[in-house]
């Protein structure tokens, strides 16, 4: 194993242990309540980057994948009282299927046309769920949390840890893709799709794979939100805010590398949590917009780009 790999796996293990210890020793629930949201955005942003960053296909339908995750969990909880792990796994499968469907329908489109199509998909799914009585329809649905599993003493703490595990899973997947042939193929097609095709890169297949993997991770990241809020309604589960936030986090962090979305999500989601508490939940949207504009103008390659520019001539992080 290379040294960077050892450092990576060690870091992942330390992160999980630290998160677990936090749930055991910190009494106050609020840090976990806020931390859950931050971790959720890390999962979504890292997942988004697999298609939006590596392949350069800007997906505006994050809310569709998130909402499908939430409602898969709702449906399973309603119909079978399924445990959380099953909810997340099935949500991942549903997200993958949605990714495949969206990919087949839209990945032949390029640039802005692809992005618009993904918005349309989100609206279609939201409308379908809004008119589906069994999962609550437009009014939404209340959910009962099952008893919490050992060693956790509260459900929110458990969800926090589960989301931390999903963070590690998302990063491991994104890092693996980045370092694989698939990653190089995605980068090639982002730079020039025709040249990539003519160089032997199966562009459609790679884009579909990226869309499926990205979708599975996003839906998995959304699934615990049902139990987190103990409530789900189409308006919030399919809120366009998810798409905008995740896009902003990934772009601000930098999309060529899995570290970018992690940094962007931690930075922005923390700021948002802070602002929501101290000022108001409306202001955080404003701050998001301002930061996005600043970064697009001043640092188009995001935080990662800034760091590697200042760290000498590091061309590639």
């Amino acid at each position, binding site marked *: 194993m290379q040294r960077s790999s050892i450092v990576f796996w060690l870091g992942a293990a330390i992160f999980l242990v630290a998160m677990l210890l936090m749930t055991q020793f910190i009494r106050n629930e609020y840090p976990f309540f806020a931390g859950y949201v931050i971790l959720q955005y890390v999962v979504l942003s890292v997942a988004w980057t697999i298609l939006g960053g590596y392949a350069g296909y800007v997906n505006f339908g994050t809310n569709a994948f998130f909402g499908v995750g939430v409602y898969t969990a709702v449906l399973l909880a309603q119909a079978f009282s399924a445990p959380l792990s099953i909810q997340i796994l099935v949500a991942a499968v549903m997200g993958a299927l949605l990714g495949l469907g969206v990919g087949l329908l839209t990945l032949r489109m390029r640039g802005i046309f692809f992005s618009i199509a993904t918005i349309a998909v989100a609206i279609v799914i939201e409308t379908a769920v809004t008119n589906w009585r069994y999962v609550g329809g437009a009014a939404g649905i209340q959910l009962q949390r099952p008893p919490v599993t050992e060693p956790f003493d509260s459900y929110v703490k458990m969800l926090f840890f589960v989301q931390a595990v999903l963070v590690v899973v998302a990063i491991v997947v994104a890092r693996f893709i980045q370092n694989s042939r698939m990653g190089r193929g995605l980068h090639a097609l982002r730079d020039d799709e025709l040249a990539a095709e003519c160089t*032997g890169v199966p562009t459609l297949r790679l884009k579909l794979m990226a869309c499926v993997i990205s979708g599975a991770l996003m839906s998995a990241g959304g699934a615990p939100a049902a139990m987190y809020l103990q409530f789900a309604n189409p308006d919030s589960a399919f809120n366009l805010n998810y798409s905008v936030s995740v896009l902003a986090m990934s772009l601000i962090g930098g999309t060529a590398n899995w570290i970018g979305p992690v940094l962007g999500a931690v930075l922005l989601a923390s700021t948002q949590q802070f602002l929501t508490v101290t000022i108001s939940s409306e202001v955080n949207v404003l701050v998001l917009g301002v930061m996005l504009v600043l970064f697009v103008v001043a640092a188009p390659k995001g935080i990662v780009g800034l760091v590697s520019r200042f760290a000498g001539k590091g061309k590639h992080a």
Partner: protein
Amino acid sequence: MTGSAPEAPLLRIDTLTKTFGGFVALDHINVEIRKGERFGLIGPNGSGKTTLVNCISGALRPNKGAVTFAGENITPLPANQRSHRGIARSFQIPRPFRSMTVLENLMVALDFATHGHLFETASHRRDAAMSILTRIGLAPKAQSATTSLTQVELRKMELARAMATGPKLLISDEAMAGLSTSEVDEVLDLLLSLGGEDIAIIMIEHIMQAVMRFSERVMCLDAGKVIAIGPPSEVMANPRVQEAYLGT
């Protein structure tokens, strides 16, 4: 290679027709290219040269007709599968993978090539890429960003990347456009050295002395039709070719 039958052509183009709306870009083109042949493709601007290349490489689908490569009908195949079967090309305006170094550009080709089993590990592929770069004369630039390359280096990089796919047919689409006289000779020598028993080359070019020196056969297109095909001197002497070029 049975003694009696003539050797099957590497590439056969059959009544190939491509229209854009009402505009006929290629009009029933028929041509065969031998294994290892050096083939020049000329014609005035807008005569359909690049469209023909796009139909061969898979960037465009023809409306009618068929492209047969090494005995297989490849008309329905996407470009990446044609690349795997041995068709490589460069572009009229260079299209490097801009976020990558020169070496990484070649690695893309080697990573996805079907002859990749020869280079199982990444370090094998890296060695293969370096040896191609050495052959092309770009080895010192291996770690450079493609954005830092000069025009002639970009042209060479595209040829190197095409070579990395392991082609049987290399299509060079105006690889010498915009180069100085000495650079034209440099690229021409390179193309002559790349061709050979195994690799047929289709060279699209406006620079006549290059076409004359390079080609075993030349085909001239005008308004989507073949107006002359044969040995270079014969085609140049053809009054219709002269008319198409000089516009008299």
